[in-house]
């Protein structure tokens, strides 16, 4: 007798909703005759190399930082976490632009400081920028997982003769491969769909072809090419699903107390990342701000960004719950979860157009904040699902059994036991969606209420016009606001920290 898990119907509905814009692409692509081009092969190769390098880069940066923020005890821990997660709030093209004009001969660094620097451009430049603005995905997902790993295994390894470093490498890392892969997946999809960064770096990618088509009024061609891009998305999703680690019971996590000089050294090592991703763009824009003068900025933009992103984060997490539980419940559920990822790999401008078509089916909602929030949710739900799912997987199944036996119906057991215990994952998921929505551009431009300006849209506006200095203030506000958002969410995480076994002395 097959018994569909209760989460399936709702999860299916949400998965289909997330797939809706991709479906629209199919109808938009009808008029396109061209299927594939040999010219496209070269561009495809470029895209694939960029994606691969981004995966490597984001993992190389994100995983050590995850260890740092999870295990190393230091003062102002939360501040460092926020600082290191902040790049997720800045649009990557802003960073690309700043770096392109800072480095190299004639670059601003040379102008101001007199130090000559190598130029940043092309494949390596793009990969560097992408890595810097997507490593927080890897860092957040891995950190979540590290926090639930039982430290006793590391202790066992050390008594068997391994140094701390070797224990972390051989005993801890293999057990978080899942989460690393989940974060890398997001980084890969972001790299796949981003247009701005490769364009500025002068690197020819698939998205650039799509963008050119789009601007040449070949919407159907752009849609067709986006669908071809979906094949790559599918491939990446498939590879990621093959990576699975063993299930294990959570335990008290490792806490490291390095000496002060070691701690400072570690923090120093993170400084280049923070410098390149946050300090450099803000500094450059401030420099130009001083040169050109400000104007045109209003604080209502910041409010718009913040509250739209916040609502989207909450809604996304709520919708992520059934999808995440469906993914745990069975194969069909897992498949439904995967489907929600496709939207994240579609280039923004094409996604925006598809969403306009979808939105026009509900004229009453068209160009309202509600629709914009739904657009954010549909695009970013994978960010929330991954987080919720991995936390839910770690809950001791005995607890739900105990509740059932005490007389709680499945629904009551879910609401009173499962849900509160997945709070940490929900919070992390909400944080990711919040940050990503803050920097979202194309859907905001096309679907928000007319006149609804966010920090991201304003930055784009002044960038397009050439008033680069005016991007300094909104850029700074983006970083600050996302910091505030992260603080709120992390304090919730503190309260939600429940270890299931003994002796929690955190």
């Amino acid at each position, binding site marked *: 007798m097959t018994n569909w898990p209760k989460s399936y119907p709702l999860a299916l509905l949400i998965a289909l909703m997330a797939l809706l814009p991709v479906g629209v692409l199919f109808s938009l692509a009808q008029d396109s005759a061209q299927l594939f*081009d040999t*010219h496209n092969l070269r561009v495809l190769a470029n895209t694939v190399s960029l994606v691969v390098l981004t995966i490597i880069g984001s993992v190389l940066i994100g995983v050590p930082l995850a260890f740092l923020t999870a295990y190393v005890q230091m003062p102002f821990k939360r501040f460092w976490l926020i600082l290191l997660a902040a790049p997720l709030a800045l649009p990557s093209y802003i960073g690309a632009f700043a770096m392109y004009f800072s480095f190299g*001969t*004639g670059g601003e660094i040379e102008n101001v400081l007199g130090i000559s620097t190598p130029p940043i451009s092309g494949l390596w430049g793009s990969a560097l920028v992408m890595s810097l603005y997507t490593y927080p995905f890897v860092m957040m997902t891995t950190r979540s997982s590290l926090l639930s790993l039982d430290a006793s295994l590391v202790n066992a390894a050390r008594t068997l003769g391994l140094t701390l470093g070797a224990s972390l490498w051989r005993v801890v890392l293999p057990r978080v491969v899942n989460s690393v892969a989940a974060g890398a997946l997001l980084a890969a999809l972001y790299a796949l769909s981003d247009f701005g960064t490769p*364009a*500025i770096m*002068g690197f020819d990618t698939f998205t*650039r072809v799509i*963008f*050119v*088509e*789009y*601007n*040449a*009024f*070949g*919407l159907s061609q752009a849609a067709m090419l986006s669908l071809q891009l979906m094949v790559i998305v599918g491939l990446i999703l498939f590879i990621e699903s093959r990576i699975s680690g063993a299930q294990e019971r959570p335990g008290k996590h490792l806490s490291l107390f390095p000496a002060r000089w070691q701690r400072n050294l570690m923090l120093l090592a993170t400084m280049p990342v923070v410098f390149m991703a946050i300090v450099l763009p803000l500094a450059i824009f401030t420099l130009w701000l001083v*040169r*050109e*003068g400000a*104007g*045109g900025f209003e604080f209502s933009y910041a409010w718009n960004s913040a509250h739209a992103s916040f609502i989207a984060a909450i809604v996304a997490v709520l919708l992520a719950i059934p999808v995440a539980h469906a993914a745990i419940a069975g194969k069909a559920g897992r498949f439904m979860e995967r489907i929600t990822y496709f939207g994240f790999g579609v280039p923004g*401008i094409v996604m*925006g*157009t598809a969403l*306009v*078509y979808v939105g*026009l*089916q509900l*004229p009453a909602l*068209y*160009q309202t904040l509600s629709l914009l929030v739904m657009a954010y949710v549909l695009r970013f739900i994978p960010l929330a699902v991954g987080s919720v799912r991995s936390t839910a997987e770690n809950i001791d199944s005995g607890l739900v059994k105990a509740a059932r036996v005490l007389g709680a119906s499945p629904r009551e057991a879910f609401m009173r036991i499962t849900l509160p215990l997945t709070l940490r994952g929900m919070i992390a998921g909400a944080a990711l969606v919040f940050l990503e929505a803050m920097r979202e551009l*194309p859907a905001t*431009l*096309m679907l928000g209420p*007319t*006149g609804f300006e966010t920090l991201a*849209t304003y930055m784009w*506006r*002044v960038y*397009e*016009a*050439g*008033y680069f200095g*005016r991007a300094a203030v909104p850029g700074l506000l983006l970083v600050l606001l996302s910091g505030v958002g992260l603080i709120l969410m992390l304090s919730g995480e503190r309260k939600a920290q429940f270890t299931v076994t003994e002796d929690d002395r955190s």
Partner: protein
Amino acid sequence: MQRRTFLQGLAAAGALSGLPFSFAHAMTQTGSVSVESLPKLEGDLTLYLGRGEGGLYENVLKAIEKRNPKLNLKIRRGGSAALANTIVAETKAGVKRADLFWAVDTGSIGMVTDAGAAKPLPDDLTAQLREDFQYPSWSPVTGRVRTLPYNTERVKPEQIPESVMALADSDLKIGWAPAYSSFQSFVTAMRILEGDKATKSWLKGINKHSKKYAGELGVVMGVERGEVDIGFANHYYTLRLKSGKPNANVALAYSKSDAGCLVNASGIVALSDGDLPVNFIRYLLSHEVQSYLAREAYEIPLVQGVEQPQGLADLSTLSPPEMDLRKLADLRPTLNLMREVGVL
């Protein structure tokens, strides 16, 4: 860049009406209209603004709003193509949102008029424009001419050929932005004027000694830095760069009578009936607005009787080709050609 408030300009408007100047073409009977004589705008108006010239179009809009306190103007910004697509989708779905669409390039305008969304404009409005720029269903606002910015330290003006086609064979290092829409419009014009074959070999030739940039601002900055000798760009990028950096190593050169000195335009189209959208357009064609845009954005006023921007060669010395601007919307074959050559 010095920022002179448009409001100051408006106050001095009265003194500026009726500036004399000459064109190569004959002047028609109407000159530019002063803002004072325009009817007040009242009510709700939704404008879709495609990638406007940063703060300057905003200033124009702000000034119009200030002058018409009863006007409730809502602005939606985005890329011209994205907004055009949105309008087409809205038209297909029968959902009406936009009253006006102000786009930076004519291609987007063409897309909207082709979808049947544009409302016809009254004759007295279109008559204000220069003869070559009068169209029944949309109005050009300001023009941009294709130029050849060159590095003054590396290149002497004599080295620059008069025909843009000749550049393919010269040994100058060229900067260009093939993905940029204005460049693609320029190549489309070349296709229309010179034919596909000549265009193809020209592209091949240029490709051999060129450097690609993301946009034409990048091209001009590259020329100024000395990375390349000469480039293709709309005129105003160079003028704006020089206004911020007066001793920049870049100057403008123009080709003669071919696609290389094409004058393209930004345009506005009315999407709903009634006097309000049309009257709004009148404001954009008013003397004050046109002068302002010429002065501050270095764009070319397309209304008769308005002074050209500083630093631009007198239009009487230029010889832009005759071209129906809407033809430039035919981008598909251009892109195919560029791809064939491997430029795109």
